[in-house]
């Protein structure tokens, strides 16, 4: 094992490991732009120059590998390489590289979306000069180039680190981007007639260390220092990517992937990311309601349950068709199980396996529900792919549909039959976060919090359990389904766990033995892999 010395620290490295990865492992600060742990090494930005003892000039830490020296040639008697990141030569190299990078930089931080999370800003503060010595007109290049449907490129801000190019070549293997022109005029561009249109295109915005690539959806929405973040999970497919919800004043402005090697690596797909736009379009109803011949009447959450109990006395809810969803968290599923045993005559419940598209080699999964593995774990049956819901409703007088818009998801050929079947029911209870087309047919509507408005746990298709977080406070009459069950059972006069995530997580712990000795702290930030295979 070669022994590396960086500044005053001795590090044992694997032969062939680079200086930069050894430094990052030990928390030694070396500035870099073009290096990315998931991409190949380019040595493009020159920011990570360090002084290596015996080398005639500073070397890039990202591409300098440590190798063993013969015993008689070791430096200072024992080191295979001696690196300094703080020596006069290293400091001068860092300062000069940064001066070059900023030579033609427009310094439009006030309007740049990256400001606040920009590596150029951070490094010029730490390593750079306080003023520019450049007195001439800066080179101007194309600005506001729409290189893709969701990505805008600004060549003046670009430092040509080529992370985006390498991402398209190595991760998505689509290779849309390339570097055109030479020297100071070089810029990133697509090949003629092509667009950056792969399903992961916005990841280039994430890995761009400066503001050259910006997301069209998030462009100019809000300065990043105003954002409030919550580390959560993407609900759009069974991959369950670790994401961060960035919100401002109760609006989700963007979803950004979090690093989680076991689930999504560093990436997430554009479809999941655009959830922030789809959330806005959902029709919301913030109060529970009951529909009679006269139309809908809406109540507050507290006032609703006695009236609902009165209604239940007249109707038969002994063996309803129960359609639950992979969009429910484990806590909600536990609550459903309890409710089914106490109030629904043990209706087993079917979680719909809604699927579309194809699995791809990177992240996207065909199953569009995040928690179907969890449903199997909690003993809830999962239907075949895209089932005919009307068949599930056959010979039933009542139905309970939770977090599924069955009308919207139904195939065109089955839609009319499904609507007819739903209208034929004596009692249809729909609990969902949006007032969907299905909810409009319901007799009783219970508003639930959306995925990003509540805490919960979810299990992805590989059995990786993660915790979701509350990114936005929901309106006060919209509750998670488990809290609705607490209120339902209390109104029915039975025993129920108290409302709230903590109490229902305790219920989940009882059902999942592997969680018994785990606390919430163990689930953060990346979740845990459950050993138990799906039944």
């Amino acid at each position, binding site marked *: 094992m070669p022994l590396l010395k960086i500044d005053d620290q001795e590090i044992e490295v694997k032969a062939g490991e680079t200086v930069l990865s050894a430094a990052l492992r030990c928390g030694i600060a070396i500035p870099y732009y073009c290096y990315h742990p998931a991409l190949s090494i380019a040595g493009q930005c020159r920011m990570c120059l360090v002084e290596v003892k015996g080398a005639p000039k500073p070397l890039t830490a990202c591409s300098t590998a440590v190798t063993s020296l013969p015993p008689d040639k070791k430096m200072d008697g024992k080191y295979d390489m001696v690196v300094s990141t703080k020596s006069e030569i290293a400091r001068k190299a860092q300062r000069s590289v940064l001066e070059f990078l900023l030579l033609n930089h427009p310094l439009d*931080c*006030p*309007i740049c979306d990256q400001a606040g999370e920009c590596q150029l800003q951070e490094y010029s503060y730490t390593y750079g000069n306080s003023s520019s010595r450049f007195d001439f007109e800066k080179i101007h290049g194309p*600005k*506001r180039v729409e290189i893709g449907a969701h990505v805008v490129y600004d060549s003046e801000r670009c430092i040509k680190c080529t992370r985006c190019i390498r991402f398209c070549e190595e991760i998505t293997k689509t290779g849309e981007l390339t570097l055109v022109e030479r020297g100071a005029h070089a810029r990133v561009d697509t090949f003629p007639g092509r667009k950056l249109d792969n399903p992961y295109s916005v990841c280039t915005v994430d890995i761009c260390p400066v503001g050259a690539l910006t997301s069209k959806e998030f*462009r*100019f*929405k*809000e*300065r990043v*220092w*105003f954002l409030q973040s919550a580390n959560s999970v993407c609900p759009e497919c069974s991959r369950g990517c670790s994401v961060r919800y960035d919100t401002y004043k109760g609006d989700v402005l963007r979803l950004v992937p979090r690093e989680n090697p076991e689930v999504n690596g560093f990436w997430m797909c554009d479809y999941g990311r655009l959830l922030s736009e789809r959330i806005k379009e959902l029709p919301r109803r913030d109060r529970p309601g009951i529909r009679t011949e006269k139309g809908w009447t809406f109540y507050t959450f507290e006032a609703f349950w006695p009236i609902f109990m009165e209604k239940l006395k007249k109707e038969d809810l002994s063996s309803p068709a129960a359609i639950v969803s992979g969009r429910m968290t484990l806590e909600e599923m536990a609550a459903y199980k309890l409710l089914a045993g106490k109030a629904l005559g043990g209706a087993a419940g079917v979680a719909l396996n809604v699927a579309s598209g194809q699995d791809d080699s990177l992240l996207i999964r065909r199953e569009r529900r995040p928690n179907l593995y969890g449903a199997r774990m909690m003993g809830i049956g999962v239907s075949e792919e895209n089932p005919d819901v009307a068949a599930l409703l056959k010979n039933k007088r009542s139905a309970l549909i939770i977090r599924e818009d069955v009308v919207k998801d139904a195939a065109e050929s089955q839609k009319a039959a499904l609507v007819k079947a739903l209208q034929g029911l004596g009692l249809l209870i729909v609990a969902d976060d949006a007032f969907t087309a299905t909810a409009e047919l319901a007799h009783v509507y219970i508003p639930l919090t959306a995925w990003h408005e509540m805490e919960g746990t979810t299990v992805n298709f590989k059995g990786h359990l993660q915790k979701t977080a509350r990114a936005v406070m929901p309106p006060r009459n919209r509750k998670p389904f488990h809290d609705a069950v607490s209120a339902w059972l209390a109104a029915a006069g039975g025993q129920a766990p108290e409302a709230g995530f903590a109490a229902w997580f305790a219920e989940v712990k009882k059902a999942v033995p592997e969680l018994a000795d785990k606390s919430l702290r163990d689930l953060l930030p990346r979740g845990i892999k459950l050993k138990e295979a799906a039944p």
Partner: protein
Amino acid sequence: MKLQRPKLTWWERTYFPAILQGLAITFRHIPRIKKRVTLEYPEVRWELPKKYRGAPVLLTGLDGHEKCTSCKLCQFICPPRAINIVAGETDLAKEKFPREFTIDMGLCIFCGYCQEVCPVEAIWLKDEYELADYDRTRLIYTKEELLARGRKPPYLPGKEKPLTEGDKP
């Protein structure tokens, strides 16, 4: 802490000396020997100091558009959070402009941080101080109102005169 009260003599305890001392000050001011410090306000106006900080206004650039690029530094620095900006995209070279820009003058404390932090000299605390109103909603100044106030003289000291509404290209 124990308060030490001074020991008063019999004469002092009658309170006459204190009353006479006070009256002496009052009578000294009656003949207006000193210059008056008050003004007959609405008729007589105070000459403002040069760097007086009154109501904040938005300035118009020489191209006839608001100078503000909606960087929101003023919104960030504003101690009572009186400023609210909604950014938008424009075809102008500055790319970004304030779609909405409101200052709640019910909250503004005239600290001048917004003027100090602005990278494009788009906001300036002017000499206006008669800002009272009967309705709080009218104290929330919109972008148009702030720009209109900015077009009135006097102009930013040491800077050229911004275009007025009539000069607009």
